[in-house]
């Protein structure tokens, strides 16, 4: 098979063949060749939007100030019924995250506590923006750090599914010059042909493609062109037919659906390198709950989803790394409504790949009043950029420089790397 660029290949004979559904294997083989190349690693980024309470998610049960600061919403000690699931004698998982404990035991799950942004904003919007642009305090950055990382390692055969976000909108972190795809449902990712609507032919897809083929390469036309490349490839690979393996059961809802479909894309070998999904409902200003309640339900969905994803992919998880994040943490003290207000540092997880698991990384700043950020929040001792850079560089193999402009710290925590 002669080598050619993806675009010329797609534009050439395969276009018509794929449209007619007679030559999908050709396309699949190309995709397989890509995924078997040096870069077969996949990074899955999960964003907990709304600021998850890191102190309930990864409980510092060994810190006496924790129980002093929190009344009704504290998570009980591991010795208590339904208490935290102990990890290392000091930290424990929220009991709703118990399905992640086996991953910890197998040293495939690591955590970083007191992680966050050097910027002290307590605005959800700004803090999410900074965590995705990768430039805390700078709002004018046009693209996201993941997009910059991928764009810095282009390949002639890069798949149209290099970077995929599950959801109706492309998140800030994947905006930029990589042609990332946003989709809600794999099965709907196609032009519904008139054949199915009114007995016509295949004109609509061809017509739309021609309309977006012409014109200047602005946001609208450029996106249109990428759309049709992606549609053709997906049609050939048919990932939506792949069923969850190893008895994996994803939780119901958008988050579970997103993870299930990311796993399908990985197993269909469409050349995926970065996937993104998010989950909301973490902004627990009132009635947060403790071992049970509002936050526990969200954490259960979150943990069940990650555990199912890990089970579904099985051995493939050696090449797949999951990184979780949230824009900031929440106040150390419980507020007046059995909830918590916007805080600063929080906890993040790293799962799979070459994670050096079984350890909580980062310096624990403590919870006594004088140790808190502005006297109220968990301080940040690990700049999120340090963790994200290590993951992108060591797992994906992106160059470090374009990820976080102006951030020179290369003292990685050592979360990722062959043991």
């Amino acid at each position, binding site marked *: 098979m002669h080598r050619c660029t993806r675009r010329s290949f797609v534009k050439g004979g395969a276009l018509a063949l794929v449209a007619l559904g007679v030559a999908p294997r050709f396309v699949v083989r190309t995709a397989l060749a890509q995924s078997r190349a040096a870069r077969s690693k996949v990074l899955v980024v999960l964003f907990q939007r*709304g600021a998850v309470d890191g102190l309930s998610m990864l409980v510092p049960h060994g810190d006496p100030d924790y129980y002093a600061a929190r*009344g*009704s919403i504290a998570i009980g000690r591991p010795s208590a019924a339904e208490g935290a699931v102990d990890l290392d004698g000091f930290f424990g998982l929220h009991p709703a995250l118990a399905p992640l404990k086996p991953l910890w035991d197998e040293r495939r799950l690591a955590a970083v506590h007191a992680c966050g942004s050097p910027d002290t904003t*307590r*605005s*959800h*919007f*700004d803090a999410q923006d900074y965590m995705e642009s990768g430039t805390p305090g700078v709002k004018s950055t046009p693209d996201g750090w993941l997009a910059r990382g991928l764009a810095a390692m282009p390949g002639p055969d890069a798949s149209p599914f290099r970077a995929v*976000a599950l959801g*109706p*909108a*492309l998140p800030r972190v994947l*905006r930029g010059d990589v042609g*990332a*795809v*946003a*989709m*809600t449902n794999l099965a*709907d*990712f*196609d*032009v*519904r042909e*008139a054949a199915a*609507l*009114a007995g*016509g*032919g*295949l*004109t*609509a897809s*061809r*017509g*739309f493609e*021609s*309309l*977006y*083929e*012409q*014109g200047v390469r602005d*946001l*609208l*036309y450029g*996106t*249109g062109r990428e*759309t049709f490349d*992606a*549609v053709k490839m997906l049609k050939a690979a048919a990932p939506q037919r792949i069923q969850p393996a190893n008895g994996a059961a994803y939780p119901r809802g958008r988050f579970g659906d997103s993870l299930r479909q990311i796993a399908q894309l990985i197993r269909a070998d469409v050349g995926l390198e970065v996937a993104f999904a998010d989950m*909301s409902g973490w902004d627990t*200003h*009132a*009635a947060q709950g403790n071992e049970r309640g509002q936050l526990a339900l969200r954490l259960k969905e979150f943990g069940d989803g990650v555990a199912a994803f890990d089970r579904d992919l099985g051995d493939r998880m050696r090449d797949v790394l999951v990184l979780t994040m949230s824009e900031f943490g929440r106040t150390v003290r419980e*507020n*007046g*409504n*059995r*909830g918590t*207000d*916007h805080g600063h540092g929080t906890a993040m997880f790293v799962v799979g790949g070459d994670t050096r698991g079984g350890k909580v990384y980062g310096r624990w700043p403590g919870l006594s009043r004088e140790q808190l950020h*502005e006297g109220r929040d968990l301080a940040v001792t690990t700049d999120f950029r340090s963790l994200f850079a290590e993951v992108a560089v060591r797992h994906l193999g992106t160059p470090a420089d374009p990820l976080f402009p102006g951030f020179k710290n290369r003292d990685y925590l050592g979360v990722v790397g062959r043991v």
Partner: protein
Amino acid sequence: MRRRAGLATIVLVAAGLIASAAPSSRLALPASPLSEQERVLHVLNRLGYGPRPTDVARVREMGVAVYLEQQLDPSRPPSAALNAALAGYDVLSASTAQLVRDYPQPTAELRQRVAQGDMTRRELRELIPAGRRPAAITGQLQAAAVTRAVVSEAQLEEALAAFWFNHFNVYSQKGAVRWMVPAYEREAIRPHVLGNFRDLVLATARHPAMLFYLDNWMSTRADPVMPRGRNSPASARPRPAGRSRGLNENYARELMELHTLGVDGGYTQQDVTEVARAFTGWTIDRPREGGSFLFRPGVHDQGSKRVLGQMIPAGGGERDGERVIDILVRHPSTARFISTKLARHFVMDDPPVALVDRMAATFRSSDGDIRAVMTTLVTSPEFWSREAYRAKIKTPFEVVVSAVRALDGRLETGRGRAAGRAAGGGAAELAREVGRLGQPLYEAQPPTGYPDRAESWVNTGALLGRMNFALALAHNRFRDAPVDLGAVIGSVDRAQPSQVLDRVLAVVLQGAATPQTRAVLTAQLESPEITRTTGDDRVASDTDVEELAALVLGSPEFQRR
């Protein structure tokens, strides 16, 4: 408020005195590089939801300036057509208390039976008919929003109602908010869309929907009166979970960050805390039963507060919150922030600084008169510039509504609603499509509302969704929102494909098709699927108008307004 409306009139009259060229109009419009046709399309697309087939000729005839005046002063009663179209939506006029009675939450007892497995979810659903479940309230509101945008002549008023609701967003799926949203839109948003900004902020601040959504109803002074916590004396009455017991900063922060000053507006964490203290006691009387605003002196922080350097003396009580709003709405950051958001929505994603400066100056000199600020906007050279023309990417809501208007689609009641089903009818079908395209109305969860920039709405999945919507609409897949393409092409001969194409382009894009788009579609006409030929002599016998209309509705040009 009356006084401020008068001030706006004076501004308009003053503008009219200078405008000697247009004696019938008091609005002076600047010179523009746009053609007359483009100017008409610009106001119809940008200040509303796009032209219906007869709108362009109508606005041309009356003149753009007169049309703008009417849009800026929509005091005339709604048309009979709009009233008739909205007649079936009982939630629009019902009080919150009425909605709580008419659309009841399943009782705690029933929910417990489901939780314990004594009753299935299906049995629970069958107990309460679909049209009387709480979710039907949002369904009706969504359908009514589509109906208004499609049918109303007061297009700018509708665009501003959507803009301000989004600015003061509440999320209908948070707790008791669902029952409060119809009243919120009716009482707090719509009366003020072209009124005074302070009135708008105050109306939202006091409304149960906002008090509940951003938790202020539970926020109390830091040292509550009642004994509390696990160490309460045994004699203390048990307090239900989630009951007010201290300060909650949520509303205070969003009031400054999102409603008034903007995130860079110059406030500190200390200001957030002080503002939260000022609003303690602003709560809801029986929130689960549709109660109204209530001030509880007992939980209000009576001490003095210092907000943005200004002292609010002790003992102000309920007035503290109003003092805060006065300080915030008169702050220069608010004038700039609101002007920037309006200019972003109505002019371009990155509005020119000079325009924002002039709008902010109007905002300050008129004490927050929204009509005056909008007048500055629509009479600015920037609004009429070539750079602004078709510079905005439509949101999903704008795509759906403008497509229905372009094809003169009808919104029918449908059998569904007649049979008492939840939110049936064409408007509801279209509203669900808006949701599928990524913008479920009244269901934006974060207080920021939906974004207003192109990059948030243009991505591969979204474009596919828009193309599929175009196909579905043109092929009459929305059963109760039919389009009559026969009427669109009128007397044009279907056997003349190029004439059919010209007609469809003229109706849907009104001359805005690029030469490339016209060329591509002309080439498509040669496809045997588009031009159905007779078997023998290969002569065109018929043109697939549905397919052509779908291609035009899904074209790059139609995604812009």
